[in-house]
């Protein structure tokens, strides 16, 4: 009898265990009905108690300070404060969504599905990666807003002296280090590649210039941090024997993302006051704004 050789396990439809099945009507329909009712009643109650906000009529001449995007975009607005706007606003979310979509093509094992945290060590990985994402994101935000240097100076009377000023936050690496003049103006392209820009400015002989300290601070360091820190976490977990397969690596990555995303959203929503300064939520005030002033980020 011929046997078929299969290179890798193919997902086959599961055999149905009829005796383990219940009827959708009433067993599932009932649960759905109750869930829908609970939400309907809760949301009606919420709507009676709390009114949706309606401020003054839109006025392009009066900028509120701070001006904020809808809350689910405040994670991106928070990222904008720390790096190049194109990276924070577009490249990072796009790349992350592609990575997210690619999850099932990276982790093709079929075991561990259909039950919560069903693989060995998954709870441990989820909790630890979640804590790492939570604490790590907060530390990075605090460091980049200069709060850690401020605390060190204030509490321990130690600022590191002027030699260490460049460690205050990421931006001071650009401003506090003695960069030679040429490094701020490196010619790197012998022609102008702004074809898609459509602005038509600059001919084929225009040179592109790179501000190396600016590039380092706005792009290189954030990219290294955003890619390196998760990779490092997964690598350490692998060396510790926690992460043993691709599912575990994704568990660590996703759990870290969820808490980092949460911290960024929360910071942007509740901890960013006027001029996007880091403040406590109870110190957060919104001013009517100065006529004619554009919001800066």
């Amino acid at each position, binding site marked *: 009898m011929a046997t078929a050789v299969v290179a890798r396990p193919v997902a086959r*439809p599961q055999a149905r265990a009829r005796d383990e099945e219940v*009827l959708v009507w009433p067993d599932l329909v009932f649960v759905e009905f109750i869930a829908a009712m609970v939400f309907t009643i809760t949301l009606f109650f919420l709507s009676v108690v709390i009114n949706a906000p309606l401020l003054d009529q839109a006025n392009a001449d009066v900028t509120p300070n701070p001006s904020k995007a809808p809350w*689910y975009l405040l994670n991106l607005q928070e990222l904008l404060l720390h790096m190049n706007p194109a990276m924070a606003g577009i490249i990072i979310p796009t790349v992350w969504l592609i990575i997210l979509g690619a999850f099932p093509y990276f982790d093709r094992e079929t075991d561990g599905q*259909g*039950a919560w945290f069903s693989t060995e060590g998954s709870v441990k990985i989820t909790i630890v990666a979640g804590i790492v994402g939570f604490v790590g994101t907060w530390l990075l935000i605090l460091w980049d807003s200069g709060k850690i240097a401020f605390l060190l100076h204030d509490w321990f009377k130690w600022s590191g002296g002027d030699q260490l000023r460049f460690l205050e936050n990421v931006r001071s690496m650009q401003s506090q280090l003695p960069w030679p003049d040429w490094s701020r103006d490196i010619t790197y392209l012998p022609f102008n590649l702004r074809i898609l820009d459509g602005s038509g400015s600059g001919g084929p002989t225009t040179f592109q210039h790179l501000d190396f300290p600016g590039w380092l601070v706005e792009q290189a360091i954030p990219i290294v941090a955003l890619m390196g820190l998760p990779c490092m976490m997964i690598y350490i977990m692998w060396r510790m024997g926690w992460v043993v397969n691709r599912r575990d690596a994704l568990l660590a990555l996703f759990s870290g993302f969820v808490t980092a995303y949460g911290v960024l959203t929360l910071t942007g929503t509740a901890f960013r006051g006027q001029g996007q300064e880091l403040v406590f939520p109870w110190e957060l005030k919104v001013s009517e704004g100065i006529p004619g002033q554009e919001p800066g980020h």
Partner: protein
Amino acid sequence: MAVESPTKPTIADKIYDKMFHNYVWKSIFRTGYPNTPRNQMLVVATNVFLHLHPTRIHRTHVKITHTYCLGGLSFFMFLGLTVTGILLMFYYVPSVDRAYLDMQNITTTVQFGQLMRNLHRWMAHAMVILVFLHMMRVFYTGAYKPPREFNWIVGVILLVLTFLLSFTGYLLPWDQLAFWAITVGTNIAGSAPVLGPKTRFWLLGGFEVGPQSLIRFYTLHVIGLPLLAAIFMAVHFWRIRRDGGLARPL
């Protein structure tokens, strides 16, 4: 020896019989009352709304802690938002002259207007949160694994569409909150390399938030994006069934 004789039909039995066993009722609902397993399966299989479900489901999947109903509730929010949204559309004109006045009208003079607006807003927030939590549920139960790879991608697209639906709706009240949130939001879109300024211009219909932006966001919010979301939801639900229902341990 007592002989069992059939009991005489009561008046209630007769009324019940007249109401549910007549020609018109049976033309609408072809199956009988779902009090037998046969009728219970038929009622799911023959009803266009209920037939999103299979007729039977594995025991573990009706436990509330398995899914927390998050996907279903996201869809329920979508339906609720459609209903409240249609009601709001009766009173709202997406022009710079009218929009803010209409909002004031809805919240002050329209019967239940404030309630409808509140419901619409809180449901929108709830939907964003529920869709995100649904994604977490699917991830942590490993339900994205083969053969459900493609449905996970459809889900990611639906997550983005949910964000976009909420974002386009944000501008419509035409108050300071709306105006500046959209200014900041579209500035983020405008920072994209190469295509950013074009995208921003295309979204806003100009270089800054103005009358054209309002009508664009409105059109996207009430018809463009809901249609797109409905198509992807149809694929999403269809694929759940085609891929063998909810994931369960192999």
